[in-house]
């Protein structure tokens, strides 16, 4: 599952982006995303794509492990790209590049920043209850995914899952999900009791400093701003 892969990369990575502060990476991501969304010229988008690929190399992020995730937006943008391609193939290509580029920008952030750090940054602006829900969901995912993988393994071993029999799969999968929900809800009651004993009052304290960690952090934010300015400015070359 992608969430587990990304979590492993972000926690265990040692690249340039992994060492930067969460705030600087968030600011950089916002600038980069804005650049992708604002750009309409094919040449600009190609340049942005080269830049983002350079950042992946610079951050020691294995494109083989992450790159396939950019295929999802490429696939879903294809429908819109085909519509636009009726007017001009360049317009179609622009749509695909924008989608893939924005997704790669998000992947760069997620592959270098643990989710908990992002939730800590979001806790500054979002209601505490919502951030708690994010943290619990993130934790619950890993607990339940392990159980679901075990259930699916049992179903497969007994011949209950075959890619070519969707109705049989649906029946067996729903039973597995039903079992998982029952186990999950029983677990949630125990979790709440433990939290209540520990004095949970509606906001899990997240100790994470958002302050930039040095000149490299300021440099990263500045780089993002320069890229956005370069996208907005008109170039008469």
């Amino acid at each position, binding site marked *: 599952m992608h969430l587990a892969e990304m979590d492993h990369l972000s926690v265990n990575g040692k690249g340039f982006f992994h060492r930067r502060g969460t705030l600087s990476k968030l600011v950089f991501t916002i600038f980069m*995303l804005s650049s992708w969304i604002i750009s309409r010229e094919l040449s600009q988008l190609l340049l942005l794509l080269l830049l983002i690929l350079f950042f992946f190399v610079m951050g020691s992020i294995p494109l083989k492990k992450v790159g396939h995730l950019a295929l999802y937006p490429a696939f879903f943008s294809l429908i819109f790209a085909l519509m636009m391609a009726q007017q001009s193939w360049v317009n179609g290509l622009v749509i695909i590049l924008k989608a893939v580029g924005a997704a790669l920008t998000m992947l760069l952030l997620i592959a270098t920043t643990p989710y908990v750090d992002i939730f800590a940054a979001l806790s500054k602006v979002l209601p505490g209850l919502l951030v708690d829900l994010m943290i619990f969901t993130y934790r619950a995912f890993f607990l339940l995914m392990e159980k679901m993988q075990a259930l699916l393994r049992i179903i497969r071993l007994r011949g209950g899952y075959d890619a070519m029999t969707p109705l049989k*799969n649906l029946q067996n*999968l729903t039973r597995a999900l039903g079992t998982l929900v*029952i186990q999950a809800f029983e677990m949630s009651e125990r979790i709440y009791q433990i939290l209540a004993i520990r004095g949970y009052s*509606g906001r899990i304290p997240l100790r994470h400093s958002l302050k930039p960690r040095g000149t490299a952090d300021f440099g990263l934010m500045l780089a993002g701003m320069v890229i956005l300015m370069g996208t907005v400015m008109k170039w008469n070359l």
Partner: protein
Amino acid sequence: MSHIHVPDGIIPLSWGAGGYVVSLLIMILIIRSMDAAEARQRIPATAMAAAIMIIGMSVPLFVVPVHLSLAVLTGILVGPKMGFLAVFVVNLILASFGHGGITIVGLNTLLIGSEVLVGSVVFKGLKQHLSVRKGAFGATMAGVALSMVLMVLLVGSTAGFSEVLPHHHHGEHDELPAVTLTETQENEPHGHSHQHGSFHEELERIRYFTFTGWAAVGTIFLAGLMLEAAGTSLIVGYFQRVKPQLIDR
């Protein structure tokens, strides 16, 4: 099923920002309307439901990546208010690794949130008169159908309905008959029937494309609708046999 996998850069940014503002306002209202102790108590169960939505979406049912979204099931299990919060968290996590654009998380939350709301309310009403499984099936049909209609309206109104479906692009269809007929009457009186015939052929072609386009969209949506409803109904039926208190809340 109704989850919009529309990537960033297609739907205008103003729509995406509007979606975020409205969904955040709704979430703030939900949190304020709830008793703090009750909300705290329900957080772990809601998180479990949200995690199960992500897991459900990651298990393909067929050789192509068709999956269950389990949004209505989440509404049935944790109620529409907590279900809406769960939907936002799920969309945010999915968008972080490329499943749907990060700029449309708000819009996606509104769409699937409406599915959660309608599904859970309809289920409550239907289970008084029908069996729990039939109630879950009907509730899912109602919820998913609504969110699908909203999704088509949203994508159609931003991309343009004329652009959503395949069609001929040799000029504006409305102008075609006027130009053809005028030219025919003035320049080629004997060619009238030929031009008239080509106009009808053109019209038939447009109708054919429009019909096949909508038919394809309709068929895909109907298949997804039935799959989600059957899946939710089977899971709820399982709860009724094994742990009925889950759906009697």
